[in-house]
C-alpha cells in the first residue's frame, strides 16, 4: 500500500493515470505526446505505477499497451470507506458540484 501512495504522490503520474482511464491500452509513444517530458522520464513514471500495481501491461506483438488497474484503489477505498459512508460522501460531492455550477451561472 505504501507503493500505491508513493506512486500517487506525483502529479505527472496522476496525469498518466488520467490518460489511461480515458485511453486504455495507450503505448509509451502515445503517452509521451502531450506531456512535455522525455521518453525516459515517462517510462520511469510508468515503471513506478506498474510496480505499485496501478498500471497493468499487455504485449500485443511488439507493442506494450498500458491499462489503468483500479484494483489497488478499490482496496484502499474498501479499507477506509464503508458502503454507508460512501453513499453520504458521494451525496456531499454531488451537492458541492451542483452548488458550484449554480455559482458559475451567476
Amino acid at each position, binding site marked *: 500500500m505504501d507503493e500505491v501512495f508513493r506512486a500517487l504522490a506525483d502529479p505527472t503520474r496522476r496525469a498518466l493515470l488520467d490518460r489511461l482511464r480515458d*485511453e486504455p491500452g495507450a503505448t509509451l509513444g502515445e503517452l509521451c505526446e502531450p506531456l512535455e517530458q522525455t521518453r525516459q522520464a515517462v517510462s520511469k513514471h510508468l515503471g513506478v505505477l506498474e510496480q505499485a500495481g496501478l498500471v497493468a501491461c499487455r504485449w500485443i506483438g511488439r507493442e506494450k499497451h498500458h*491499462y489503468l*488497474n483500479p484494483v489497488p484503489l478499490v482496496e484502499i477505498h*474498501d479499507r477506509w470507506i464503508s458502503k454507508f459512508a460512501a453513499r453520504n460522501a458521494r451525496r456531499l460531492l454531488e451537492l458541492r458540484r451542483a452548488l458550484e455550477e449554480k455559482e458559475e451561472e451567476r
Partner: protein
Amino acid sequence: MSLPALVFEIEIKSTPERIWEAITSPDLTRRYFHDTAIRSDWRNGSKVVWENPDGTSASEGEVIECEPPCRLVTSWSSLWAPELASETPSRVTWEIEERASSCLLRLIHDKLEGARKTHDVVKNGWPGIIEGLRACVEAAA
C-alpha cells in the same frame, strides 16, 4: 473505433492451483461472484454458465481455451439485464502467473465492440469480484 480491453491485475498470496479452483469451482464462485455458481465440463467449445441461486443464468459463454492452472478463456454474454443480453458476446481471459511467493491474477475482458453497455457495467464490477476472489483464496490458506 473499437473499444479497448479492460485489464485488471491482483496479487494473491496463494498457489496457481488454489486460484484456479476459486475460478472454476461452483462452491467457491458463490462466495465472491454475486452468489453465482460456475458450471461447465471445461472442454473446448462447451458451455460455461454463471448460475444464479434460482437456477437462471447470470452470464453464459463458451470455453475457448482451458489450460489449468494458468489460463482460461471463455466468451461472455451478460444475461442479468435484457439490455445487456441483447448485445453480442465478448471475451474473458483469466491468466495466473506464478511469482516468488505469490501469484499475479490478470483478468482481461475484451472483444467488447458489440457490448458497450456490458463494458460500462463490468468495468466497475470486476475489481470487486477479483478482490473478493483474493479474499476467498487467502482466507482458505
